[in-house]
């Protein structure tokens, strides 16, 4: 089913006229049982559409095709993007969700394909689902006029493409939708076979560039440089169209990613209805004011009430377990109504079978589904149409993601509602008390470092395999490449003859280089009661936290008992079983020093750089009753320990530092925790990675007293902590500046607050208890003590 055309024609509601659901929520907050729950309410004003005229206009067939979709005029940002591309500039489009961003590339691409039958275009998306989704919307647009449809020969070329179709797409298509991983391992290494496509390449579209951050982004930047050089080699030349969600530095990110200056197009001309934000803090359960009502239950109550009031809504949760739980609670609630509304909500998350996910997306788009409970899997731009309301149960780990999630609400020009439901947890509770933290700060920057020596070494090998590297390439890949090529030469991987470096081994370098940090080993979940039918999949790391023997695995709200986890075959055998509890893994993490490479005296402390083993293990499971969250059982488990062998630096603050903090009446251990949290953020900036690429732990078991460990979250390490070790002074100064520059009184998530310790994919955030933010002063005194130490820098 297609979106009703009316959606494009709707007018913004008159200002001040609050939508029915927003009115309802205000009313509900006044009910006695919800007293004090509404922590904050904010309304962002509506904005009228702003259109522009394209000169010269689009070719008639394309304009007709657009009109057929109900689009008669173009927004200002669309016109600017098209005009810049026509003038031969590379662009980065940064506009809101549902602002017609994809037309910024579909239109110029189709315009070119109409006049030049040889021309080709490449679309890159971070996920396979997005490629499929965009193929659909592109075909829909093109089918509006026969000439456009004839000019377009589009195909998805990714890991799911059948071997037989691959060749046909490679040799016959003029628009290919793929992902960076496929470009890296499947297209570039056999570029001579792609010569026709690459020689005629006119546009490369890189959508959702904000997801190319940290290690992944640094790899992708190099993959794009490899693309550019093979295209140049066969005489092609193309423009980049990149798109980003709102982040702090879209222009900088795009420029770093594509290696060219990108023009920022951010004058969003799409109309926007009023947007209401409500911050909802589940009330305390009793007068002791310690426990709050379950946020999953509270969130599901809000979500179902919104659906019952006619809103199409989405609930975002922080983990897969939470998505299942909230869905289950919501389903139960709606079932009691006695109609079929409970059948019109679904859960959505990674691990479901792809066709199941496509069905849900489709049903949501068509309006058949009234609500979805999702993980962040629906945060990325799969087109599900605009919704009326979003309930965020727990704050997403970054402000950028929170805005992205909230942006899912809002049909063109209509009022939208976003509710943030807090867990009784540090960051969420901070946001409830300080809403300006969300509204006043610009979202995080996305940082990449294409010149990272470890990443560059891997990428230069791949590049040399594709074409020998010459002088010009040393400019393309940056000043580091000279030294790195020399190292590769020493290792015997490349060989330089007459100034050109050739790949000199029989190995296929791209096979060893994965762009992403997540492993590709996947467990299959089979239902023993249905002849081992495949129920879903889960990644290798999560399997041990989700599918241990006797675990209750939640799938579409249904409780499944795990009979067996076969680690060899990577299969979990489950059977549906009606129980009134779910299970939670109890994890134990550990850090061990494997070897010391270097040691330096730094401002009174002895800091080491070396090899570390970070490991974690599911040691037990807890059985937890639905709704009440009562713990009803605890069973030890024996599962393999997962390890990350990496590089890091560590030190145990000496007595002088310890006393300096204690003397001022602060807790030294709190100070060290604050420093750890600060270092996570600042080392990420200093070494140009994402905070998710780093780990930090306070541990006493290695050195006999509390020590700070910082390490790279990447096998073998990628040099982030090596940078930190070499620049301890800068790190400490930056941390101190950052701390005293922060406006908060006693510490907040932006300074000494809780860093991203681990992406708790499999945990129910409802069971995590609030921890205090470590004291700001303790960390400040500790840093000041170090910075005042002299004579030990050499």
């Amino acid at each position, binding site marked *: 089913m297609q979106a009703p055309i009316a959606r494009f024609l709707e007018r913004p509601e008159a200002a001040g006229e609050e939508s029915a659901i927003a009115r309802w929520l205000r009313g509900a907050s006044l009910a006695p049982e919800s007293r004090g729950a509404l922590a904050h309410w904010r309304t962002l004003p509506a904005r009228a559409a702003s259109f522009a005229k394209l000169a010269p206009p689009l070719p008639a067939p394309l304009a007709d095709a657009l009109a057929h979709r109900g689009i008669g005029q173009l927004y200002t940002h669309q016109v600017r993007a098209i005009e810049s591309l026509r003038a031969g500039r590379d662009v980065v489009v940064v506009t809101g969700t549902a602002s017609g961003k994809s037309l910024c590339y579909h239109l110029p691409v189709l315009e070119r394909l109409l006049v030049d039958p040889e021309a080709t275009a490449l679309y890159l998306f971070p996920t396979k689902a997005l490629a499929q989704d965009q193929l659909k919307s592109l075909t829909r647009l093109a089918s509006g006029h026969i000439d456009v449809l004839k000019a377009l020969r589009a195909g998805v070329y990714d890991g799911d493409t059948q071997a037989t179709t691959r060749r046909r797409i490679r040799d016959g298509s003029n628009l290919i939708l793929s992902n960076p991983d496929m470009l890296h391992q499947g297209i570039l290494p*056999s570029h001579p076979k792609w010569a026709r496509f690459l020689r005629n390449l006119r546009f490369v579209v890189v959508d959702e560039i904000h997801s190319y951050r940290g290690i992944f982004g640094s790899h992708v930047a190099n993959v794009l440089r490899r693309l550019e050089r093979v295209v140049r080699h066969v005489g092609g030349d193309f423009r980049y169209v990149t798109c980003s969600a709102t982040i702090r530095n879209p222009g900088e990110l795009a420029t770093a990613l594509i290696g060219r200056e990108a023009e920022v197009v951010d004058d969003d001309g799409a109309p926007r209805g009023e947007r209401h934000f409500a911050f909802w803090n589940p009330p305390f359960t009793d007068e002791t004011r310690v426990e709050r009502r379950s946020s999953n239950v509270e969130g599901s109550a809000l979500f179902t009430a919104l659906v019952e009031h006619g809103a199409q809504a989405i609930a975002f949760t922080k983990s897969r377990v939470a998505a299942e739980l909230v869905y289950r609670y919501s389903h139960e609630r709606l079932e009691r109504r006695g109609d079929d509304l409970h059948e019109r909500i679904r859960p959505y998350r990674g691990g479901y079978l792809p066709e199941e996910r496509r069905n849900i997306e489709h049903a949501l788009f068509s309006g058949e589904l009234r609500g979805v409970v999702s993980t962040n899997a629906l945060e990325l731009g799969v087109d599900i149409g605009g919704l009326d309301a979003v309930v965020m149960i727990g704050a997403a780990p970054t402000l950028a993601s929170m805005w992205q999630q909230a942006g899912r609400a809002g049909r063109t020009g209509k009022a939208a509602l976003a509710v943030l439901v807090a867990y009784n947890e540090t960051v969420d509770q901070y946001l409830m008390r300080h809403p300006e933290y969300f509204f006043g700060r610009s979202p995080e920057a996305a940082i990449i*470092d294409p010149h990272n020596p470890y990443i560059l070494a891997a990428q230069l090998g791949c590049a040399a395999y594709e074409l*020998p590297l010459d002088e010009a390439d040393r400019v393309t890949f940056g000043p580091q490449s000279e030294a790195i090529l020399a190292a590769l030469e020493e290792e015997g991987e490349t060989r330089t003859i007459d100034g050109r470096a050739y790949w000199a081994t029989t190995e296929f370098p791209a096979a060893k280089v994965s762009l992403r940090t997540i492993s590709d080993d996947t467990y299959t979940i089979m239902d023993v009661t249905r002849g081992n039918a495949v129920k879903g999949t889960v990644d290798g790391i999560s399997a041990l936290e989700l599918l241990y023997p006797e675990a209750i695995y939640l799938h579409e709200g249904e409780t499944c008992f795990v009979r067996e986890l076969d680690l060899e075959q990577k299969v979990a055998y489950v059977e549906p079983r009606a129980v009134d509890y779910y299970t939670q893994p109890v994890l134990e993490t550990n850090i061990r020093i494997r070897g010391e*490479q270097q040691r330096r005296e730094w401002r009174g402390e002895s800091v080491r750089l070396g090899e570390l083993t970070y490991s974690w293990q599911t040691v037990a499971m807890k059985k937890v009753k639905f709704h009440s969250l009562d713990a009803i059982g605890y069973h030890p488990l024996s599962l393999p320990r997962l390890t990350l062998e990496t590089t890091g630096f560590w030190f145990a603050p000496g007595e002088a530092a310890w006393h300096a903090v204690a003397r001022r009446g602060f807790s030294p251990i709190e100070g060290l925790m604050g420093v750890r949290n600060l270092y996570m953020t600042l080392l990420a900036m200093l070494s140009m990675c994402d905070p998710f690429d780093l780990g930090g732990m306070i541990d006493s078991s290695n050195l006999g007293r509390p020590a700070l460990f910082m390490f790279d979250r990447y*096998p073998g390490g990628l040099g982030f902590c*090596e940078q930190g070790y070499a620049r301890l*002074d800068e790190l400490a100064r930056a941390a101190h500046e950052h701390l005293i520059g922060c406006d908060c009184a006693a510490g907040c998530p932006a300074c000494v607050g809780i860093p991203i310790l681990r992406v708790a994919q499999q945990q129910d955030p409802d069971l995590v208890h609030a921890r205090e933010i470590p004291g700001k002063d303790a960390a400040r005194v500790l840093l000041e003590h170090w910075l005042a130490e002299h004579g030990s820098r050499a």
Partner: protein
Amino acid sequence: MPRGEALRARLGEITRARRIGEARADETGAAAICEMAHLSATPRAGTAPADLPAVAKPRRPRPKPMRNGAAAGAEARVGVEAFLPGGEWRDGSGAVYVHERLRSEIERPRSHWGQLGVPPADEVDLVALVACGLERALFLDLETGGLSSSPVFLAGTMHWNGKDFVIRQYFARHYGEEGALLRAVSECARDFEFLVTFNGKSYDAPFLATRAVIHGVRLTLPPRHLDLLHASRRRWKRELSNCRLQTLEYHVCRRRRVGDVPGDEVPGLYHDYVRSGDPWRLAPVFHHNLLDVITMAEIVRTLCDPRRGPPQSDPEDWPSRPE
């Protein structure tokens, strides 16, 4: 990323010596970093006093990379010439080594070498080849670095000059000579009507085309292509367990090979040669390539003789290798 310890250590040195702030001081990024960290009031990261590691490690003296045989000139004690007498083919952009000899220098000449019988009428390509004459056919066999994007380093060709078979081997003494190898083969192929290969339709011809794109060479191959694998399969698939070239050689040419290099080791030997400049371990590869083109000529002759089938006698009695 399982890589050598030495490489990791070197990358570590590069990493620790890096000053990202400095390197980017003039880029927009540095400003953004400072702003993010609320550092705008302080000097940029890069201008802070140097914060050197306590142990100022001297840079590891790097061993001089060994130069390869071809480039090393006088330094090379034994060059490829010792195994493969010949000279250079040159054009404006490079050179490739060429070895040329007659088949009669390798085995006792036979009067039937140049004679082709009457091929079965349904073997269209074979009939066409016989019709236009053996002189118009170029036999070709490649030795490559294995993977699709690895170099072709040896191209063996053979043609009939009316009296004898002329064998040429084009050998790239390093990766940089591959372009010249492709141009030399192209030049040679221009004079022929037929390309004769064994599995060349799926392997040799597309491989050359791929490499030609990489080197920007305009590749010309003879207009028609006879792939003996397909004709052989049609003829012998019932009698023989498989139709690999070596199997056919055994049954059709009654020749067995000794001291041959397993095919999957060949690419590694070439990379070793480029690194060390010492060709002795490649010598069997040259020989192997030579036998392959000769065997192709024998297969063509056998296919044109409907009476000849796979032999019945004991192969143990046959000579192991023509000398």
